């Protein structure tokens, strides 16, 4: 059946390696004319690498891309666009100070003589495109004044300035309201009717089942299969996506949970999260599950003194405390391994030792001077304990692999000997081996009497490491599960707001 329909775009055996990571390992994909082809996979599965290859931002190591029967190798986004492959970024690539029309025709403004912009042509052509998209703003609006959803429309409008053959949407609905989503789906339907091939990348199952014709799943950089949407189910797709390997079993360890270390009562922070009450005991891992924007990271930042709560109380060992600064939080025995290791966790230009000892540098003194011996002791013991693979302590953290970088961040905070360790997305974007090591470490910490909070968007990870699971949706706690009663279905329901 596939043989009868010639695809507009086919990707064959594409391989792309980065230092230390094989991002794509022989991926094959067909996009047909007039179909919506969903591309699914967890963070780090290789979706974005594949897209960037299609859009000319990366060149593949091997493999081929065929567009309309002709082999192509776009070397820049501009070249890809000229060929008819357009990528709609998740991070918008707009110029805030310019008008909608100027953004839509960026780099290709219609000219009159002497280099003047032909405003009439520009506004006419833009208005035409905006009409096709049912946009409610004018070509002359300043992009910086528009809402995020409208900015996205501008980005889509840009795709329509060329004769697009394939349009790639990267998480297009991440910041859209329901109303705006409907408009987007209409646009996608229009493009589809016009014979354009559409690649649709999203985490949201219900959208994918609603608009896609076929679904391709990637995992760990490898192609896992393509399914007809009409003939499959969420369960089947999920299985392909997250698989079931042995080390991803559900946590069955029974804990002898100790005393309550941290408790919150009705904790709120503006419109980020409201009325959050939960507790963590010594020797227990509490998982926080929820979608991006559910308020989990913001909750962690509040517990660590980076944000001020607007209501509610934080109790440590049963006594109410105020955690106003990170220094304060550290004094109360709280450590936070933040969500983004490169932006919040590490100083990339510093060496391994200095990164690990940074939060306690004031204590590592002999008289007024730093004690290199004490620093090295700490580095050595955590390097061993976490098996950090680094040529030595002098190595700049920038040069380590993602997994080892993450271990440095974890080591940095374990070295503080905290009573409560909060880890936010502990395994994002790191290799499978390091992942397993970090999961084991988290369990081991609980056994050693630490109270641990794990925040993760990966459901198997949450199920694998947690003793209890708190689910959040739109800034509110939905339900709490014990490890025994939780399963993927019930979790998905809770984090999607269905109680």
């Amino acid at each position, binding site marked *: 059946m596939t043989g009868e329909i010639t695809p507009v775009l086919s990707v064959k055996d594409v391989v792309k390696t980065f230092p230390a990571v094989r991002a794509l390992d022989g991926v094959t994909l067909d996009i047909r004319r007039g179909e919506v082809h969903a591309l699914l996979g967890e963070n780090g599965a290789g979706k974005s690498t594949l897209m960037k290859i299609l859009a000319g931002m990366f060149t593949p190591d091997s493999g081929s891309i065929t567009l309309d029967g002709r082999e192509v190798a776009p070397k820049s*986004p501009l070249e890809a666009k000229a060929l008819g492959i357009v990528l709609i970024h998740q991070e918008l*690539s707009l110029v*805030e*100070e*310019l008008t909608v029309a100027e953004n839509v025709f*960026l*780099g290709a403004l219609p000219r009159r003589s002497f280099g003047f912009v032909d405003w009439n042509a520009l506004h006419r052509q833009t208005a035409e495109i905006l009409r096709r998209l049912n946009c409610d703003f004018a070509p002359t609006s300043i992009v910086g004044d528009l809402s995020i959803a409208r900015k996205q429309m501008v980005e889509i409008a840009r795709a329509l300035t060329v004769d697009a053959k394939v349009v790639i949407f990267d998480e297009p609905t991440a910041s859209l309201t329901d109303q705006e989503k409907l408009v987007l789906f209409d646009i996608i339907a229009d493009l589809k009717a016009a014979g354009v091939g559409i690649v649709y990348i999203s985490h949201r199952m219900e959208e994918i089942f609603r608009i896609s014709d076929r679904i391709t799943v990637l995992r760990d950089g490898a192609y896992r299969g393509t399914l007809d949407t009409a003939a499959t189910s969420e369960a089947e797709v999920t299985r392909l996506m997250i698989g079931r390997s042995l080390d991803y079993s559900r946590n069955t360890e029974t804990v002898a949970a100790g005393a309550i270390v941290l408790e919150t009562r009705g904790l709120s922070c503006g419109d980020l999260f409201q009325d959050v009450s939960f507790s963590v005991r010594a020797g227990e891992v509490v998982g926080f599950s929820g979608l991006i924007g559910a308020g989990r990271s913001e909750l962690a930042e509040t517990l660590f003194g980076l*944000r001020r709560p607007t209501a509610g109380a934080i109790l440590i060992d049963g006594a109410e405390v105020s955690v106003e600064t990170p220094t304060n939080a550290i004094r109360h025995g709280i450590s936070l391994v933040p969500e983004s290791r490169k932006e919040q966790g590490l100083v990339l230009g510093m060496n391994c030792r200095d990164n690990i000892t940074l939060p306690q540098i004031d204590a590592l003194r002999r008289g007024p001077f730093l004690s290199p011996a004490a620093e090295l002791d700490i580095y050595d013991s955590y390097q061993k304990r976490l098996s950090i693979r680094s040529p030595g302590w002098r190595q700049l953290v920038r040069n380590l692999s993602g997994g080892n970088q993450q271990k440095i961040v974890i080591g940095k905070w374990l070295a503080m000997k905290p009573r409560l360790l909060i880890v936010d997305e502990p395994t994002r974007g790191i290799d499978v081996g390091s992942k397993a090591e970090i999961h084991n470490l988290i369990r081991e910490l609980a056994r050693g009497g630490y109270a641990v909070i794990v925040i993760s968007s990966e459901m198997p990870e949450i199920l694998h490491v947690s003793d209890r699971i708190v689910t959040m949706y739109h800034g509110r706690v939905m339900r709490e599960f014990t490890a025994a009663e939780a399963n993927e279905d019930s979790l998905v329901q809770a984090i999607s707001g269905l109680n």
Partner: protein
Amino acid sequence: MSDIKNNSFVRWLSRNPIWGFVVIVFVFFSFAADHFFALQNVENILVQASTIGLIALGLTLVMINGNIDLSVGAILALAATVTVDMQGWETLAFLGDWVLLVAVLAGLLCGTLLGGLNGLIVWKTGVDSFIVTLGAMLGIRGLVFVYTREQSFYASSFAYSDFGSSSIGPLPTLAVLFIACAIVIHVLLSRTVHGRNTYAVGGNREAAVNAGIRVGPHMVVNFMIGGFFAALAGLALSTQMGASTPNMGREYELWTITAIVLGGTKLTGGSGSIVGTLGGVLAISILRNGMNLMQVPSFYVLVVLGVILIAVLALDKHLNRRTAQEPAL
């Protein structure tokens, strides 16, 4: 509802708050200083503003691009020196009065080429424009000192020094020149492809590259425009003095950047306008002129300006504070 005209005026003012400040100081000095509110004095202000103003026109483009040019003061001095000196060259005597034209063109060419050189270095080496032009600022000033042997030059052509005090109709020529150039650059920035790309390159360089704008040559052109206007400002200043001094234009880069930042251009690039820059230049000139007329020693202007600059920055930060998506660091 409230009428649209009023609304759009409010919006315009909120985009160019410096003009509100200009009006306030203008009104203030009109009452506080004798002789301030007079056509003659307004002309004076414009002539005084023309030097910093001309530099600011070019530098605004460079800064909207997300770059900076610290060498404009030195370029100003070099262009003025070359132009004033060439008028007296024996070898060019055969040109008669045309020597003036040749000298002026040579001066402007110097500025444009040095601007281009800065731009080329920024483009090709990828070294930050702050460092490149800091080097050039020293180097070009050194060139001026070596060239002049630390002496002042006097214009040998009377036509040249007369130009500085001449008028077109009721208006001083230099004021007319400044306003005409401001209009040209405003049109360039707001109506031409190059001008619109200037915002794109400064506002989102990656998007500009992906859209096929050739960022490197684009930046070089703006550096050349910056150099040209610095040179033009040098000529304007030397026609007023009838001479060039090796120290002229020193610290003008600081004054100009102050004016441009007051006018709402961000150091990070991507935003700014000639209208705003004009407001910034006028604000500085009016303050200087008005305080001078009130017999306040000129030193106080320096303090007032420093304070205003920092206050504007603080105010801007306060007003444009992003909503609390990021934890306060």
